[in-house]
């Protein structure tokens, strides 16, 4: 569904992505792993149009999107769940979700569909339903992350870009988030590109993975093979170190 060929992205003079090529097939969970500063978030931002690549090509269902603005890319069916949630704290939970559906509000006959999507989000994250009238600022970290994913889903994306969804969360909550991600892929057939600090957990969820190192892709492979790759183990999995909650 998505093909990236040779993209180069810069922050001013800093060459952050060097000739990156990557593809996603419909229904896949693909994870990007790499150290801090390797360019994982930049790659997501390049795809969503927040930091457009300076050269190269991004095709979404064979349509070039690398020159589109972020809001147009959302319209094409790509939503990003940003790092650090970026929730509107003075608004209620339900209003935050409503913002995610901004594409549809003015369209006729969409009211029902929006309601259905909200219901779907509440089904995924029942806690949000309980808190729907609460101000987002009063939510816990885990609930904020759920709300952030829920808001992205309101745009009914075909491709969901997730940036560090487990960051700062208690292990139990992180696991809950991971469970929902796998569900989204299995049941809604949403394609997912996942950037995750917990590389082991990400590789266990994903079908495939890419390893990014200082702006360059150095490995592509089935997630199971990457888990067995010694270079990956050494650099990103903390070899022989098992997190307690992953059993």
């Amino acid at each position, binding site marked *: 569904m998505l093909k990236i*060929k*040779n993209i180069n992205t810069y922050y001013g003079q800093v060459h952050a992505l060097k000739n990156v090529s990557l593809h996603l097939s419909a229904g896949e969970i693909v994870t990007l792993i790499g150290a801090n500063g390797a360019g994982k978030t930049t790659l997501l931002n390049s795809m969503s149009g927040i930091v457009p690549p300076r050269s190269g090509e991004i095709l979404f269902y064979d349509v070039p999107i690398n020159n589109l603005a972020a809001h147009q890319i959302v319209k094409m069916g790509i939503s990003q769940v940003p790092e650090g949630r970026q929730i509107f704290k003075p608004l209620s939970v339900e209003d935050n979700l409503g913002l995610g559906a901004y594409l549809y509000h003015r369209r006729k006959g969409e009211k029902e569909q929006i309601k259905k999507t909200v219901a779907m989000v509440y089904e995924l994250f029942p806690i949000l339903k309980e808190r729907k009238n609460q101000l987002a600022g009063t939510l816990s970290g885990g609930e904020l992350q759920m709300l952030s994913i829920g808001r992205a889903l309101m745009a009914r994306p075909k491709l969901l870009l997730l940036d560090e969804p487990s960051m700062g969360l208690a292990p139990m909550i992180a696991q809950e988030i991971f469970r929902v991600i796998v569900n989204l892929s299995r049941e809604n057939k949403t394609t997912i590109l996942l950037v995750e600090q917990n590389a082991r957990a990400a590789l266990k969820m994903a079908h495939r993975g890419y390893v990014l*190192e200082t702006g360059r892709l150095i*490995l*592509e492979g089935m997630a199971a093979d990457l888990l067995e*790759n010694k270079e990956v183990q050494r650099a990103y999995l903390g070899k022989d170190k098992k997190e307690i909650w992953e059993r």
Partner: protein
Amino acid sequence: MNIWDEKNECMSRDEIEQLQLERLQAVMNRVHKNVVHYRKTFDEAGIIAEDIRSLSDLVKIPFTTKEDLRLNYPYGMFAVPLREIVRIHSSSGTTGKPIVVGYTKNDIRTWSNLVARFMTAAGVTRDDLVQIAFDYGIFTSAFGMHHGAEAIGASVIPMGMGDTEKQIMIMQDYKTTVLVSTPSYALSLAERLEQFDISPNALSLKVGLFGGEPWSEKMREEIESRLMLSATDNYGLSEVIGPGVAGECSCKKGLHLYEDAFIPEIIDPETGKTLSPGQSGELVLTTLTKEAFPMIRYRTGDITSLDYTRCECGRTMARMQKVMRRSDDMLIIGGVNVFPAQIEKILFSVAQGETPYQLVVERKGAVDNLEVVVEVTDKIFSLELQKQRSFLETVKKRVSVETGISVAVKLVEAKSIPRQDEKIVRVVDKRQL
């Protein structure tokens, strides 16, 4: 018709090319980081990984040759620390030293699955009994086929080479259904069966997987009718992975080359220029998925051509023609690769100087014979008879130890080997396949 890995073997051309580009860029970054040889040659050629923006940029990258592998003996071409290597194989070098290749745990799994592809394509299933009549040694063939058969879940009988009578007994008693060997060995088996008056109908053989040496359609017909099985060809070389680069499907119209794991190119062996699809030339391979021993544009020395048209079996991978020729002077004797230079070096060192000689290859029945014909020089002539005999014995023994093949050595009169323009033709290959 069964396909082992439908997702990868039946990709659209567009998908194959995207995957190849991604993996090529990744492997370029990896070898530049981890292998001194590649870092040096890329720097000398003034190429960086970022110059590879499409598959057509491949031509900018320098070739890797057997000479490069020799210079980096033993571990110089490894891309991972030795501690991560779980297997070491070797292949024939052009001099006394072999070429060393390594595998990580993932490489072994990748390899198993590649071999399982052509085994499945030939009709092997988990219900089969696979008798492997390749040498279980430092060469890759026996182990590669072994892994593939196990991955499928078939029962493997690791016979190894030789002892034809025992092979036949086991084939009869264990009810072997799949034979893995060189094509010429399959013919020796057939001969022996006829001597023993055993009808192939009394055996349970249904599939033969043959490789390791060139063989013709005529040989295929002969093997199929004499052993009553379906004979298929497969291709590989130790430097690249071993068996598992390409293999025939039941259509038997070329060997599907697994393009998700290797990028094939056909070049003119003289000029190094890339030839267009369909043209015949030397096969050059780049590995895309190997961890321990990645090869970038490795010159295989095998002459073939590639066919990108769709095969009836549903696989989309390009098909290579059966390899019948080499671009260099490498000889394949009973499935073992030998370079004339290896034998020359041994001969000259035993004779303590240059000696006129000729290598004569013949196939007697199904067995390859290599004879080293040596002209008597004054130095040899002056030896006592006993010493002359021990000279011949020493050459024979050293060739056998260093190359793994047995040869006959014979002395002839001075100037009796025919000359062309004052020069002896070094190798005479009288085999007709």
